[in-house]
């Protein structure tokens, strides 16, 4: 760690890990409800568990991005953070707002939460992933503005590299596109159309800039390859990401009432979306192969390579599987979508945040890398989580294919629930894989507490 103010990243990473655990626990609850329908009903209905599962994911990834940015920007800019104090205050504001929101989800019926938070004044609730009360959304905007102010001031007074420039563009884009969450027209088609300006333009747009920048930063550090080379790769990857992903938004516009020209635009451009992820995989492996030093943190290198591969599989391959309009006609809104969502979020965003944590946390704790013993445990966690996620995805894909066949392709289609009964075996297997994933998460957390011989930073 070159600047003391980079250490503000630490509470963000710890908070993120706490929410990660919550996310996975609620995921297991939902997975069980898929097969034991009345599990925990009426105390935790499925929709409540799902809100906690998805919202905890979004918030912990945002915390991970924020922590990463607080660590990365000062080091790249070669200057202390503008205000470490503001960063710490905003952390607590964010954490408390997130905790209160989750308590609200769990403690009262959603309609009550909507009423007491004054949703009718500015209705934004009740839309997938944007379920947060309007006041929470306003809180997110305030935290994001403070965060961007703090980092922009740091960026402006320091050195501007490709990496911190791309990261800042990504973070500003994240904040700007979130503003569309406040636009909720009565017109359902327009509601859905612009809802994707938050959701798609985040995960298949500006978040990829953040992902690319973090990955490039860690690869420079662990491989020692010339910045010049890495920055060129970064620009090429994010160009491919935006050129394919922006108009690729159209793959969500096939069946929601939008004009049918989107079937062409959406299919063609989103079919190219695997390309940037493939480039990312090549990038990570190439840089590690051309490494000029043996960095003692081998776990971080493993996570960086894993990010490339799993993002390509989850976002690239599993996305492509159902992105062409004639295929999507049958798969839209089935377990195929769930399969893709799980591996894409894990492979791209969960893994890149863990890559950054894995690289920076030892440095913030005063050593170049964790002890060999701790790293071995961390690598076990990598394999447990990653293999478990591969199986979760495969089982959901199998469930999805059967669902499509029984409910949509067949000449004598079954109803929704009759179909679900037919595919419950795959839901059981997914749940088992989910338990293995949880074991991986616990193993990962344990690795932070394993001592052993460490090299000083």
């Amino acid at each position, binding site marked *: 760690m070159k600047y003391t103010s980079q250490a503000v990243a630490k509470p963000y990473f710890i908070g993120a890990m706490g929410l990660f655990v919550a996310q996975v626990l609620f995921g297991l609850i939902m997975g069980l409800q898929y097969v034991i329908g009345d599990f925990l009903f009426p105390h935790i209905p499925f929709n409540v568990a*799902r809100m906690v599962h998805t919202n905890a994911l979004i918030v912990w990834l945002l915390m991970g991005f924020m922590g990463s940015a607080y660590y990365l920007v000062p080091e790249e800019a070669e200057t202390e953070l503008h205000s470490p104090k503001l960063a710490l205050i905003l952390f607590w504001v964010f954490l408390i707002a997130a905790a209160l929101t989750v308590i609200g989800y769990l403690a009262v019926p959603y309609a009550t939460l909507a009423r007491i938070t004054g949703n009718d004044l500015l209705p934004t609730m009740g839309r997938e992933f944007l379920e947060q009360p309007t006041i929470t959304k306003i809180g997110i905007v305030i935290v994001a503005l403070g965060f961007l102010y703090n980092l922009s001031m740091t960026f402006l007074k320091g050195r501007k590299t490709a990496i911190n420039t791309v990261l800042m563009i990504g973070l500003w884009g994240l904040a700007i596109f979130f503003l569309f969450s406040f636009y909720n027209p009565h*017109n359902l088609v327009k509601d859905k159309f612009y809802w994707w300006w938050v959701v798609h333009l985040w995960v298949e747009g500006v978040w990829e800039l953040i992902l690319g920048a973090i990955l490039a930063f860690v690869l420079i550090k662990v491989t020692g390859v010339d910045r010049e080379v890495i920055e060129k790769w970064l620009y090429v990857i994010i160009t491919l990401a*935006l050129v394919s992903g922006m108009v690729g938004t159209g793959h969500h516009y096939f069946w929601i009432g939008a004009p049918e020209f989107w079937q062409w635009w959406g299919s063609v451009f989103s079919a190219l979306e695997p390309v940037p992820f493939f480039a990312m995989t090549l990038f990570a492996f190439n840089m590690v192969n051309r490494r000029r030093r043996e960095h003692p943190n081998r776990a971080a290198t493993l996570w960086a390579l894993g990010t490339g591969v799993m993002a390509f599989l989850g976002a690239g391959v599993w996305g492509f599987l159902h992105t062409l309009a004639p295929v999507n006609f049958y798969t839209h809104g089935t377990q195929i979508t769930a399969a893709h969502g799980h591996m894409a979020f894990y492979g791209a965003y969960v893994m890149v945040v863990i890559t950054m944590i894995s690289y920076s946390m030892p440095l913030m704790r005063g050593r170049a890398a964790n002890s060999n013993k701790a790293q071995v445990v961390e690598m076990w966690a990598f394999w447990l989580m990653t293999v478990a996620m591969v199986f979760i995805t495969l089982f959901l894909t199998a469930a999805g294919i059967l669902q499509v066949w029984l409910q*949509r*392709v067949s000449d004598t*289609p079954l109803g929704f*629930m009759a179909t679900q009964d037919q595919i419950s075996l795959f839901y059981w297997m997914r749940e088992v894989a989910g338990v293995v994933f949880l074991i991986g998460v616990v193993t990962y957390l344990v690795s932070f507490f394993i001592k052993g011989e460490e090299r000083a930073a």
Partner: protein
Amino acid sequence: MSSTFTTSAARNIFYGGAVFSFLLFLALTFRTEQVLPQRDQRAQLDNPQVVAGKRIWENNNCIGCHTLLGEGAYFAPELGNVYKRRGPDFIKAWIKGQPTGVPGRRQMPQFNLTEQELDDMVAFLKYASEINTAKWPPNIEG
């Protein structure tokens, strides 16, 4: 990558590509807004029941279990075409009858909607079912 391809060239391609893509996306969005009136049943929004029904849909987080035009959670049936599949009376009776309490079955909460609110919900689901979705879903089962 070769030395003839410089970082500043890569950077310029990025900025150019990003701006071009965004403008193309905006142009397609502009065209969408022009075509939408023929497809999105906006005349039905003059009916206050449809607007009220959408609010009830949102305030009870229906999307947390169901899909609507294929978007949402995959735990419970598609409701974009439920008006055509089941009809208004069944929808109201179903919502009123929850939860079924059948052991081991997926349960829908009781939302305590008034008769007026049930009618609003039905009006909203009727509106949703008449949006032109390019013939999706493939069959009535959703």
